[in-house]
């Protein structure tokens, strides 16, 4: 069975993909949509899905063989059943009608952006205020979203809206797949403290979304949203394990290089700090390796959720020690080392705030892993319109 799949995908790739020039065989240049359409139609974009919906009904080793065959030839389009959050969510929760209309289009296009956070709803996501009001066969949407990556490129966004303010906050939410390319959707880049602009604000003014684009049920969007973020956390977890391979064999740790370059490796107190920083990195790698073993044996691992906290300590710590190694020279950004140290110090907040702050993560660990009782959530049971705002 397994060998057949492997042989089939390799034959298919060899007759369709030009690995040397990284484009479709016989074409002059790489055309993403054309290539993705071929991969989707062959079933290789989402092999774990059912045959009815662009998949091959495969699992485990067969799926890995397909992904490996693509990776070996540098062919894009694999793993859309793992990484295309919009398509995954529609596949899991969409009606047959919605799947029929959008799934193929989503799989063949760019990834969806995520329209979740708002200026007034960060850690407390159920506090969102973007309104969607029914108007004929559509909903009319008004509100502001924030921290949206890829908002300029995306054709669709996954949109969390408030549809009922007379019920408690978790109960009046509806989740949509939302067309981005329309009037009333304005994307503005956010200027970050690192000097980068990876994220955007999205202003939505009288934009429209068809009722049939609801993901899951009307007013039960919180449940659908949980399914979507579970897929997202899985991807983030995979990212962590993919990055952390090799221990003492990986390239020379940056702090060691920096301290050596600036002649500070002989100082006892600095040695202690550098050693501890290197230790934190290796310990996180070891935890993630253990998580992978756990997942192989038991299908899950609670260690996965510790990576974010570890990574924050690593990144903030390394940035602080880098500055210490440089001394007052860190104030002068003419030098690359100083620029890097200052950039890293700011960038560390991306890990400790992004995707839910570390403080929220500590609550999650305490409640879901250690089984401690949930903190009081004072607005959980009152109608949303009575919830206090800042």
């Amino acid at each position, binding site marked *: 069975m397994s060998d057949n799949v492997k042989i089939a995908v390799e034959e298919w790739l060899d007759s369709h993909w030009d690995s040397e020039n990284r484009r479709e065989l016989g074409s002059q240049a790489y055309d993403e949509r054309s290539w993705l359409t071929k991969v989707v139609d062959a079933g290789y974009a989402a092999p774990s899905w059912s045959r009815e919906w662009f998949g091959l009904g495969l699992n485990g080793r067969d799926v890995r063989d397909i992904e490996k065959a693509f990776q070996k030839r540098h062919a894009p389009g694999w793993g859309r059943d793992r990484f295309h959050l919009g398509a995954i969510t529609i596949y899991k929760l969409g009606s047959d009608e919605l799947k029929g209309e959008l799934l193929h289009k989503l799989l063949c296009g760019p990834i969806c952006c995520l329209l979740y956070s708002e200026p007034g709803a960060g850690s407390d996501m159920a506090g969102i205020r973007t309104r969607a009001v029914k108007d004929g066969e559509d909903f009319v949407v008004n509100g502001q979203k924030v921290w949206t990556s890829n908002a300029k490129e995306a054709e669709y966004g996954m949109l969390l809206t408030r549809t009922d303010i007379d019920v408690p906050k978790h109960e009046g939410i509806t989740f949509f797949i939302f067309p981005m390319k329309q009037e009333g959707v304005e994307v503005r880049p956010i200027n970050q403290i690192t000097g980068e602009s990876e994220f955007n604000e999205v202003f939505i003014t009288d934009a429209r979304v068809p009722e049939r684009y609801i993901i899951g049920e009307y007013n039960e969007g919180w449940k659908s949203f949980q399914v979507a973020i579970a897929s997202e956390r899985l991807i983030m977890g995979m990212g962590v394990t993919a990055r952390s391979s090799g221990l003492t064999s990986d390239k020379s740790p940056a702090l060691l290089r920096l301290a050596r370059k600036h002649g500070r490796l002989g100082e006892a107190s600095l040695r202690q700090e550098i050693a501890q920083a290197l230790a934190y990195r290796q310990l996180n790698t070891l935890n993630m390796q*253990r998580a992978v073993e756990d997942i192989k044996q038991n299908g899950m691992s609670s260690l996965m959720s510790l990576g974010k906290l570890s990574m924050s300590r690593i990144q903030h710590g390394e940035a602080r020690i880098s500055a210490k190694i440089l001394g007052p020279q860190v104030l002068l950004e003419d030098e690359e080392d100083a620029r890097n140290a200052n950039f890293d110090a700011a960038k560390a907040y991306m890990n400790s705030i992004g995707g839910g702050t570390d403080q929220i993560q*500590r609550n999650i660990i305490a409640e879901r892993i250690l089984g401690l009782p949930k903190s*009081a959530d004072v607005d959980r049971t009152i109608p949303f319109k009575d919830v206090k705002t800042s």
Partner: protein
Amino acid sequence: MSEYSQEDRQAICASFARLLEENANEPKLRELIETRSGFDRELWQKMADMGLTGITIAPEHSGAGGSLEEVEALLEIAGGFLLCGPFIESCVIAPALLLACEDQEFAGQHLQAIAAGSSIFAVAGCGSSGDWDELPDVVAEQQDGHWCLSGSAHFVAYANVADHCLVAANVQGEIGVFLVAMEDPAITATLHKSSDPTQRLSTLSFDSVRATRLAGVDEQAWSGALVNGLVALAGEQVGGAQRIFTITIEYLKIRHQFGQAIGSFQSLKHMAADLLVELESATSVARHAARAIAAGNEDAATMSYLAAFTCADNYRRIAADAIQLHGGIAYTVEHPAHLYWRRAQSGQWAYCSSDRLRDLYLAEMEKNHE
């Protein structure tokens, strides 16, 4: 590589846990720490009968032929019970040194006796600095064709119950290892009151004590044995940390104030979540280092130093915060938290200080990334 399958290892750990539940439970521990010796020789014999004292000793010397992986797993169990006695010295470090001895007939007799439980070894590895990787204060000199030891060895664990002691000594600027019988009247042993009641520490003074040198046991063999001891201790610390952490989390669920379980307060939750990171990191690295030693990996020493200071420091932090998280109840001697805390404190200085180990680790990393 370990010869044991995962099932074998789990089985031996399960029997060890049952033995300790019956013979080293908290009431028994509290009785034992009030005694002068602080050691239960009957329990030791039962451990020997189960093959545990010979866990690292080869089957040809009547041992169980285990690797550091089994040692680490067993010590996680022992650590949870705050087991008292020179298990690491007598069953991990001493066998490693004896195994490195060129005279295997001489070493074999002792290994057999350790496995049988009839002989207990202490190991004297440091001077008053407490660091086992420094040159010891004991000096060895040859007189009339015999080796003689003079000077003092410090922080010798369970010398008060040992039959023999392996002594690291300064031989013209190099480390050599010597065997002495504890009954030798030229050895003066002073048993101290230890800050950790689950530990017994002595200072040994040697006044021209005749000793047998372990032929071929050089500095490299010494640091190899030390590394085994460090990882064994790391396993014990993981076990202790796991136990006191579990006790603490359970308490946070049942203790109520202001009409709710105190575990629902974020200030305590966040401490608990941070401690879980420390606990899991310690667990991962202790097990990884044990596997690295068992497999003879190149980075075994690096990983062992990393495991040693991580487990020592994280155990201390977890046990210290456990008292704080409990509040008043853990400020009483009747509560076990302080026993774990004291054990964790003493572990900060065992074999090498954490700071010294961190420095050794960095030195290894520098070597790996020149």
